[in-house]
């Protein structure tokens, strides 16, 4: 039993969400002392699978065996007791509280019936920090005083304290520098030597090849590949992740690109977020900014529209230099930005459709100081019909719509704004296929009318289907450009990982 023992054996696990089967009869095995990478595009089902493992759903189907025993993981506590430790992407530490208390929350050692044993607590904290290589960190200082990397390691130490046999890490390196990643990896290797089974989720191909022993690839809720890392290569993994080339869903777009430059960035820099960015956008073009999450793609957009500052470089709009102090200026000049998170950044959910659709054009349609939404009811109706918002009722509160229709309202808002250049940040995240199609058609039509668009998306087929050109962004730098003919899911994914023919650094 010893060598072949499976720490985790998930058999035919499925999880149904309303309208979609997020995880479809997946088998997933992890051996003891193995680092098992789990890969897949956004929406492939890997995080849902891990949430099943963490006990966040009580309605999954299938069987889960841990160390050979069948377990029911219907709640987070059951999962914890079964020996599963989850390191989440967002830190769950209280920043103002000391490290040792964060580590020992809910189980501080007691000296007697009344008091906690601070000495012992600190010693316990020191011991668990030792395991993650933070032996000389003072556990009495607060989390806010240590670096992001250390905080991440403290988080791991906290999870390790519950003595899990399986450790799940979701993009643990997403906010670390390269030196820090090395540190993190040596810790993970040490844990492997201790016999722990580790599931490692990452988008970074390099990391997988550096650290993982085995890799499982998921696509559309299914397991599509499983191989030893030593027996596979990047091309093969990318192929598995993207599957057969898909075209039918995205009809061929008419080429409307002209040579007229609408927007040009020169040496555009916000220190610490993106450096020396240069690109041009042409009239009638859809330009994709391709990069992994955290590569600085959203930050470029935010700095361009004046929400964040930029420190160096210039932006030219129709040949004229622009420097926006706030987003309002950008809109009146002709640059719009469709935010990525419709619920937090995009829409006033508690207000009716008409308020939302007209929210960017209040100044444009106001007469002196005065303004009324009622003056523009026709415009609202036109735009929500154009976007096929259902039900097409401008007085309905936005939070009573489905996600897809909310996203359509958000698009209608920017169609009503009638700007020259539209930056779309994840325009179809979490919406159904119908809404997606409608939104894509709207983007195409918009560009065909002589506008231009920049698209930022983690949905690779979307970029393949829409973009006329892609610039590749990696860790805050533009490292290459892919012409329309070259845009495939393969090339995008390779380029985002700093590989392939289109990368010139």
């Amino acid at each position, binding site marked *: 039993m010893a060598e072949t023992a499976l720490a985790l054996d998930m058999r035919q696990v499925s999880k149904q969400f309303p309208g979609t089967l997020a995880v479809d009869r997946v088998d997933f095995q992890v051996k003891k002392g193995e680092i098992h990478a789990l890969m897949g595009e956004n929406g492939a089902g890997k995080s849902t699978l891990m949430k099943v493992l963490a006990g966040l759903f009580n309605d999954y189907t299938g069987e889960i065996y841990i160390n050979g025993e069948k377990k029911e993981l219907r709640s987070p506590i059951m999962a914890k007791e079964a020996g599963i430790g989850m390191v989440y992407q967002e830190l*769950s530490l*209280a920043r103002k*509280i000391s490290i040792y208390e964060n580590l020992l929350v809910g189980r501080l050692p007691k000296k007697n019936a009344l008091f*906690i044993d601070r000495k012992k607590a600190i010693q316990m904290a020191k011991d668990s920090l030792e395991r993650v290589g933070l032996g000389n960190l003072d556990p009495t200082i607060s989390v806010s005083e240590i670096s992001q990397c250390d905080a991440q390691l403290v988080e791991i130490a906290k999870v390790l304290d519950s003595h899990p046999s399986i450790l799940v890490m979701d993009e643990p390196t997403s*906010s670390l*520098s390269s030196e820090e990643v090395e540190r993190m990896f040596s810790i993970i290797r040490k844990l492997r030597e201790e016999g722990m089974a580790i599931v490692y989720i990452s988008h970074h191909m390099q990391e997988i090849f550096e650290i993982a022993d085995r890799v499982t690839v998921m696509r559309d809720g299914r397991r599509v590949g499983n191989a030893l890392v030593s027996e596979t290569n990047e091309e093969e993994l990318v192929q598995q992740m993207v599957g057969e080339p898909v075209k039918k869903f995205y009809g061929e777009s008419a080429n409307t690109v002209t040579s007229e430059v609408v927007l040009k960035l020169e040496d555009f820099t916000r220190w610490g977020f993106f450096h020396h960015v240069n690109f041009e956008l042409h009239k009638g073009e859809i330009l994709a900014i391709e990069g992994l999450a*955290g590569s600085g793609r959203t930050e470029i957009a935010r700095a361009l529209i004046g929400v964040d500052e930029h420190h160096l470089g210039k932006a030219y709009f129709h040949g004229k230099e622009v420097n926006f102090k706030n987003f309002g200026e950008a809109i009146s000049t002709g640059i719009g930005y469709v935010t990525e998170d419709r619920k937090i950044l995009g829409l006033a959910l508690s207000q009716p459709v008409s308020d939302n659709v007209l929210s960017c054009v209040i100044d444009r349609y106001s007469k002196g100081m005065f303004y009324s939404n009622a003056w523009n009811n026709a415009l609202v109706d036109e735009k929500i019909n154009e976007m096929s918002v259902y039900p097409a009722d401008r007085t309905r509160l936005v939070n009573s719509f489905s996600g897809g229709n909310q996203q359509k309202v958000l698009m209608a808002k920017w169609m009503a704004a009638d700007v020259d250049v539209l930056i779309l940040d994840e325009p179809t995240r979490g919406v159904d296929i119908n809404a997606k199609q409608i939104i894509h058609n709207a983007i195409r039509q918009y560009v065909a009318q002589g506008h231009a668009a920049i698209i930022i998306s983690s949905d690779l087929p979307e970029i393949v289907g829409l973009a006329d050109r892609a610039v590749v962004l990696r860790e805050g730098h533009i490292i290459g450009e892919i012409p329309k003919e070259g845009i495939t899911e393969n090339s995008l994914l390779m380029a985002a990982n700093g590989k392939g023919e289109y990368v010139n650094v």
Partner: protein
Amino acid sequence: MKKMKINGAFLNANRAWIFLIVVMIIGVFTPKFYTAYNIKAITGNNTLFIWLACGFTICMIAGNMDLTVQYCSTFAALICLGTHSRQKWPWLICILVAVLMGVIVGMINGLLVTKLKISAFIATLGMQFILRGLMYLYAPDEQSIGRDMAANEFLNDKLIKFLPFSAYFLICLIAVLIVWIFLRWTRTGRNVYMIGGNIETAWLAGVKSSRITILTFVISSVLCALGGALNGIFSGAANISMGEKGISPLMIGMTATIIGGTDTSGGSGSVLNTFITMIALAFLKGIFKKTEMQVLVISIIMILCIAYETIAAFRRSKILGIRPNLRNEYLREKGKA
């Protein structure tokens, strides 16, 4: 052990002590300041505020505001003196009745916040007015005096002969220390910080956050009720409009809490720091004899503290999410240039 670094963060973390030291140095230049009589009078007269400030601090550490502290203490004083003079109960029973009232008020506050999900500021604002109304119902004649010289003298006497402090002040000091120990050395106490710092983390670790929230309100109200009752005995009178002239006790409590370094969004702070600040404020009041000047000086210090924290948070938000790799690159580029 730990190396002390003198920098902005260090100064800010210890601002309560720095404030006290500065005030004490100013006191040296004030004539007739460091006399035993003066110290005893200053500390005695401000003891009530210490109770209130500490109550306010506990709630704020848990991420809430308790605006009832002032009326809770006044009401307690009225009940204590009232039951003594009307029902002729012994002092101990009277104090217990007053404290019981505190427990009830704290429970109601806590339940409003945790069960009805009304934000603490609003809930206690409403409770504050209910208490005020009840106070007038209980003592419509605006004052209820029940002077008992023995008890009064006991609280006014020096308990320890060579220390220039009244017994009342020393009792308060003991209470503060107990609360401090509770918050610092017990599991429940540490959980108070945890729910103030990150209620989700606390919840994930199985901390019963609503129970602890209620507990903080109860402790706060009990401290205020006890302090108020003793203050009534100490000063021999309970005035219904106590603190409505001059700077209100609630305001002083909040000021001491904020200057003492308790985070206004919860999760950090210490009753001891609040206590130190309160002593400093008491000395300050001893130095600036005029009420007007007191209010101005105290308010300026407080507004500076709030502004400092606001601006620091504003600065932090500007560099939120910075990429370490790129920051290093920036430093390299800057080094070359």
